């Protein structure tokens, strides 16, 4: 089989195929619900209700989307330049560790200064974590997929050691967790009394900033050129290696903000289960958004909604939460295929 491009896809194709992908996803989820012995319509309804059916549900979804927007942006930025950063998880934890280091009384600053300083330091830490793999790639040709992926495990073990040792909360009754952040280091809530912190606002701002960087700045132009055709970029005099490094710094910094915002906005301290794979889910978020930074916000909300909704549904209907993973996997596969097929048709030979 091969793909034959369609120069001007019809509107039906452009709307119909993604809609079909969504329908297929829903169908497969329904079959699974049926298999689990529940009414599929009720199950899907409960997921929807759990994700957005009440103010509490909606805020929970927004909270869950926040780290996914950051990791999704990190992946989208890197993948745009064909830098395969699979290590957002490690960069997230680097940001979280720095947040704890600086946020537990190390810096005697008022909140207005302290929070930005911590955020910047967290970004720097995340950027440095990705710097090693990217230098290995540009200098020695080492595949960054392997190095960034393995860094995730190194980082988790390092965090585990920190939480058992230097960062262990002396008042924590022996649990491997860090001391709580001081009040001045916490991200405030957007509206007092509602459980939604400014990390969400920062995530939206970041998405807009990434969009502006990509379309308006010289660096963004270089990153897109390198990603679309590195050979032509090199020929034209674009410093491909340096652009890769800058891309990595931005990507690592964005992923670290996920760790910062989870610790400073939501949890207040660092534990080993800070991230249930936000770094990896960021890849799904970015791919679903076709690497578009504003699309990342939408797809992060969708993915967060599915997770939050499935949690709530599981409690009510007794269908396992694994259905969320399958829903997302199906959505990703069918959507990516559908979007590919809007501009090309398959020919079987």
């Amino acid at each position: 089989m091969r793909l034959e491009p369609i120069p001007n896809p019809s509107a039906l194709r452009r709307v119909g195929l993604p809609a079909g992908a969504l329908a297929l996803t829903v169908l497969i989820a329904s079959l699974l619900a049926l298999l689990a012995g529940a009414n599929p319509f009720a199950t899907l309804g409960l997921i929807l209700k759990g994700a957005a059916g009440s103010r509490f549900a909606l805020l929970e979804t927004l909270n869950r989307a926040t780290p996914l927007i950051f990791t999704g942006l990190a992946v989208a930025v890197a993948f745009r330049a064909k830098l395969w950063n699979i290590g957002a998880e490690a960069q997230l934890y680097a940001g979280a560790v720095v947040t704890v280091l600086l946020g537990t009384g190390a810096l005697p600053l008022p909140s207005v200064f302290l929070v930005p300083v911590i955020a910047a330091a967290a970004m720097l830490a995340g950027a440095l974590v990705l710097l090693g793999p990217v230098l290995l790639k540009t200098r020695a040709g080492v595949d960054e997929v392997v190095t960034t992926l393995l860094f995730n495990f190194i980082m988790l073990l390092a965090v585990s050691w920190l939480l058992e040792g230097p960062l262990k909360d002396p008042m924590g009754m022996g649990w491997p967790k860090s001391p709580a952040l001081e009040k001045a280091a916490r991200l405030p809530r957007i509206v007092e009394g509602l459980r939604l912190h400014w990390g969400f606002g920062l995530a939206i701002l970041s998405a807009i900033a990434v969009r502006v960087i990509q379309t308006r700045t010289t660096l963004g132009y270089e990153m897109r050129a390198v990603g679309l055709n590195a050979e032509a970029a090199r020929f034209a005099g674009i410093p491909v290696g340096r652009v890769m490094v800058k891309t990595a710094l931005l990507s690592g910094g964005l992923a670290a903000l996920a760790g910062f915002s989870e610790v400073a906005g939501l949890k207040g301290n660092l534990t080993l289960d800070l991230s249930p794979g936000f770094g990896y889910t960021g890849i799904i978020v970015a791919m679903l958004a076709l690497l578009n930074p504003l699309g990342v916000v939408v797809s992060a909300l969708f993915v967060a909604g599915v997770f939050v909704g499935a949690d709530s549904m599981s409690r009510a209907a007794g269908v396992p939460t694994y259905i969320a993973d399958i829903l997302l996997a199906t959505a990703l596969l069918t959507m990516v295929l559908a979007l590919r097929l809007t501009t090309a048709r398959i020919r079987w030979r």
Partner: protein
Amino acid sequence: MAREAGAEVVLRLDGITKRFGALVANDAISFELRRGEVIALLGENGAGKTTLMNILFGHYTADAGTVEVFGHPLPPGHPRAALAAGVGMVHQHFTLADNMTVLENILLGTGTLLSPRLGSGAARARVARLSRDFGLSVDPGARVGTLSVGERQRVEILKALYRDARILILDEPTAVLTPQETTALFETLRKAVALGLSVIFISHKLGEVMAISARVLVLRHGRLVGAVATADTDRHKLAEMMVGAEITAPKLSDHTPGPALLTLSNVDTPRRGNAPGLNAVNLTLRAGQITGLAGVSGNGQAALAALIGGLESPAHGGMELHGVVPADWSPRAALAAGIARIPEDRHRTGTVADFTLTENAVLECYAEAPFSRKGWMDWAAAEGFARKIIETYDVRCPGPAARIRLLSGGNMQKLILGRALEAGPKIILANQPVRGLDIGAVTFVHNRLIAARDAGAAVLLISEDLDEVMALSDVIHVIYEGRLSPAFARGTMSPAELGTWMAGHGFGEESDAA
């Protein structure tokens, strides 16, 4: 070689139409190919030759029309059908496995390859007989990786013949050959038609079309605009038919060259994979002079282009630009030194396919004012620059915001040319600047290069088309396995003499040069 009209029709295309969106790539094309006949398919790039062949081979399905081979209709959309019916194609880019022998390559895919009898008896004898009958001398036991380009082409033809091809289609077969190899290929084609085969010869070289074909079909904008017996036409008429307008050959005015702008002395560069590096190269590019570089493809042209283009530094030997040794050497340094580069591969190296014309126009100057200020792009300025190129260089396109992948090769090349020349370069590196372009675009590019030369630029013209090099160059070097011949002044060498250098004779001893 014109056959009597009564000869059997072996291939009939009837009303073939193919549309890509609004573009009509093939518009009701009908023709017949007879037994024992060579027809030439002539047309600009984008005229629809490739689309037509892709339909014949089932890679595309025609919107209308039918293909008949030996009287039987071909089912559309089945690549194997054409092969099975006896149509063989030799592509411009060979599809051979370098690490296998000639015989293995010929048998690959025929089913005999895995049989225990491989290489023994029947298959080997058949290949030997085909070699002899068609004058295709090549050692069946040699590894393809060790063969010259001409020999590889012979293997491709043998491959088609072994599969019982009765109709041979050759796509720009002479682009990679020396004049001598071209003569040998024509000898083979004459033997083939004498044995009752039929040949479709796709080319844009008018001299060859006149030499080998019995009839010429001319395609323009997807339409068959002419079908004439070769005996009843001439190069000039064919060229006119192709572009629909009269062509004037480029003229070089006499004038004395200026000072040396770039000098290479005894330069070596390392090999890159299969491509040879440079070996003790001496070269001087002078202001107001076009230096032509002739040679068979893959003899170090890429290494020389990479060196002058800033992608490679000399491993050994010296390079002087405007009389100074450059401190560091990179594409940016080359651009800053006033070197304009027209790359060999406009799709892979020259442009970013998914970028707009505007984004591609500033690819080499995006970091400078007015396009970039303090890290921010000024897209209005960039678009203005793109519009200027589009206007000055007659780039036919939907507009500066269109993706460049939508443009034909000629228009893409005009944008690259404009981008390179707008900066007012001192030195112009033109690597295969007209490969695959239609005659109109070729004339345009050539005239621009000559105008730049007359204005005092030093031009290095690298081309595998000897006619082009001879028509345009004030001095000619031949490159062979990374070594450069002495400079031959315009008009002092015949094509045959240059062909001898292209085949490597004369490079034996250093002192033997000139």
